[in-house]
């Protein structure tokens, strides 16, 4: 049966039909739709497949490793920067090994459509010494789930599955197979205690598996050779394959790469037949560097590092065609009457009222800085508010405000969302409390994870209790309702807490207007 699926949905359905027992994830574009699809899928519901959102990517990775320990198939999903958050658990899961199949899905975002960097998760797979699968289309994304779980169990290692935005968020028809049964509950009897004495042995065991991983890549149905008369050799990784085929059709002399470690023999064979190799990969020049070292300094290897393809940004049919010596190009001149239309906070959003109040109060403190965080409210950096001085990673608002206050900044203000606070803000707040740092933390609570489309937020109804539990003084945990009519009160509270020499937390709380409207519609129907 064929189904029209987003790349993300193909991953989700592929996992369910491969006998998945649990997905563990924190929302993040472009990976969010995987978990949402599983949450709403009838078979997953009937089987009781775990799909509730996790507090962050590290808790997700660890819970999935626990499910794997118990013998069942688990999937962890995140956007690329989530790999940084779960890196400790991820890298060490390669040392413990796995029992039930474990797939770590990383959704990379070349061109930074919704992200702060272009990091390439294939580096993580190489770093942890585990295989990586990189589908070129939605069908492969589906097929790689069953294949990946089997491979994971055969090798006893986690598998990274790397997708990029253009695959995650593009639809195509997928041939769907019959669902398989879940794996039985059968906890590992192996020792997963990574004390140095044990870890040293396990690390050697992981290194010994590298040949089997290479063998799997050499035999992989997803790595294939296409021969043509042309002399130029191409390595097409993941979705790059599509752009090459779009430009050259069947006239390409190439190795398609969708499974790592690299299929070295196939690459060497192609190199021997050609005068040079062009490496086409979405993201960072991972393969270009590896192949340069594989073939030796004398062999011409071209790609992003040599400027044959742009060093930054995603691949497009245009930049790939150009690298292949073909031309595409605009027929019409750019429009004269044109203006950029950046994203903005919704009309009626509570974050707007927070920034309005904050800007008015802080106008009296010319030395102030506001440290921002990751979420819809990052848009407070843009006009008309222009309130923020930083946005780095999940939770950094609080800790950066603390560090700047330690250095003497006053007022030092952090703005963080409710979901981001439980993701990675709580520990930083504890640091600030223990140091009695002079900071004002605004947890702008809209009762949801807004930016990714309104997923449940882990700490809803618990924020005051969390702050008190971490040791913020009760009289300095203040709750306000961000509405224009409450502006005088909100401004008064902000002013009082800035003037308090210590840690204070202000929680402006009003539901996201998007989820509010959705809830109202659901009630009406």
């Amino acid at each position, binding site marked *: 049966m064929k189904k029209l699926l*987003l790349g993300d949905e193909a991953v989700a359905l592929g996992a369910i039909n491969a006998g998945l027992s649990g997905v563990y994830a924190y929302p993040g574009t472009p990976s969010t739709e995987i978990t949402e699809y599983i949450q709403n899928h009838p078979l997953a519901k009937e089987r009781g497949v775990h799909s509730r959102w996790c507090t962050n990517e590290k808790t997700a990775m660890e819970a999935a490793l626990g499910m794997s320990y118990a013998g069942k198939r688990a999937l962890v999903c995140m956007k690329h920067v989530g790999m940084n958050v779960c890196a400790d658990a991820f890298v060490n899961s390669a040392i413990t090994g796995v029992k039930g199949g474990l797939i770590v899905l990383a959704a990379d975002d070349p061109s930074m459509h919704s992200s702060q960097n272009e990091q390439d998760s294939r580096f993580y797979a190489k770093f942890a010494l585990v295989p990586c699968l990189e589908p070129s289309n939605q069908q492969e994304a589906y097929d790689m789930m069953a294949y990946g779980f089997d491979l994971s169990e055969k090798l006893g290692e986690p598998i990274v599955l790397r997708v990029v935005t253009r695959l995650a968020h593009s639809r195509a*028809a997928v041939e769907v197979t019959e669902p398989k049964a879940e794996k039985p509950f059968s906890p590992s009897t192996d020792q997963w205690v990574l004390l140095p004495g044990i870890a040293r042995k396990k690390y050697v065991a992981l290194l010994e598996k590298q040949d089997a991983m290479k063998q799997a890549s050499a035999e992989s149905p997803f790595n294939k050779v296409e021969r043509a008369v042309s002399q130029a050799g191409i390595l097409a990784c993941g979705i790059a394959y599509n752009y090459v085929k779009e430009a050259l059709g069947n006239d390409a002399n190439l190795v398609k790469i969708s499974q790592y470690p690299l299929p070295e023999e196939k690459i060497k064979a192609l190199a021997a037949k050609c005068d040079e190799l062009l490496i086409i990969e979405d993201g960072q020049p991972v393969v270009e560097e590896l192949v340069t070292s594989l073939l030796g300094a004398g062999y011409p290897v071209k790609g992003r590092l040599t400027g044959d393809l742009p060093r930054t940004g995603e691949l497009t049919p245009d930049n790939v065609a150009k690298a292949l010596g073909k031309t595409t190009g605009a027929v019409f001149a750019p429009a004269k009457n044109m203006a950029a239309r950046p994203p903005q906070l919704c009309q009626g959003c509570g974050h707007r009222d927070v920034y309005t109040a904050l800007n008015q109060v802080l106008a009296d403190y010319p030395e102030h800085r506001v440290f921002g965080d990751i979420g819809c409210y990052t848009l407070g950096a843009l006009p008309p508010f222009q309130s923020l001085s930083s946005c780095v990673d999940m939770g950094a608002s609080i800790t950066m405000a603390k560090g700047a206050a330690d250095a003497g900044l006053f007022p030092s203000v952090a703005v963080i969302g409710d979901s981001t606070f439980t993701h990675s803000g709580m520990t930083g707040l504890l640091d600030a409390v223990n140091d009695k740092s002079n900071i004002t933390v605004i947890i702008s609570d809209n009762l949801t994870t807004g930016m990714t489309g309104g997923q449940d937020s882990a700490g809803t109804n618990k924020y005051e209790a969390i702050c008190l539990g971490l040791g913020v003084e009760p009289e300095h945990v203040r709750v306000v309702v961000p509405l224009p009519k409450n502006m005088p009160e909100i401004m008064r509270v902000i002013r009082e807490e800035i003037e308090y020499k210590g840690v204070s937390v202000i929680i402006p709380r009003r539901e996201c207007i998007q989820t509010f409207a959705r809830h109202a519609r659901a009630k009406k129907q």
Partner: protein
Amino acid sequence: MKKDIILCGVGGQGILSIATIIGEAATKAGLYLKQAEVHGMSQRGGDVQSNLRLSTEPIWSDLIAEGSADLIISMEPMEAMRYLAYLSKDGRIVTSSKPFVNIPNYPAEDALQKELDTLPSIKLDIETVAKDCGNPRGANMVLLGMAAPIIGILSVKNLREAIATVFARKGEQIVEANLKAFDSGVQAGTK
């Protein structure tokens, strides 16, 4: 046969519903399809677009190359022109004529409309047409109706059936209202 279509507008205007309906119609008609969407940050009142590729042969790239789109279907006149680099020599623009102004530096409307008139475009005040046929939320269906006769690879009938399928779970009334808006668009577009 192959048709490359760019759907565009401002986040929240209903671009993805149009894409869903064309996708449903194409699947039913047995066509190959690829549809790249933009989710996430840019949906908040920013510019949004979807690349829709329909073909009787397998399709490789999820994205449309510059100079090769057969059709730009836009919920907003300035947004229609944002993707001019992608329009092919014989391509057409089908757009709402009514600006959505949520930025301080939106171009002067007269100049914008004049520039649009120099391009191979048809435009219509789809919001007024939608209101006039009793479905003020159906402007996107009016726009789809306008584009329907020139999509080519799918018939008007294919698209009507897809509207009925996609909106079926919302009830008969919603289906009828959307079909009415679509038909008004078809009529206006063929005038």
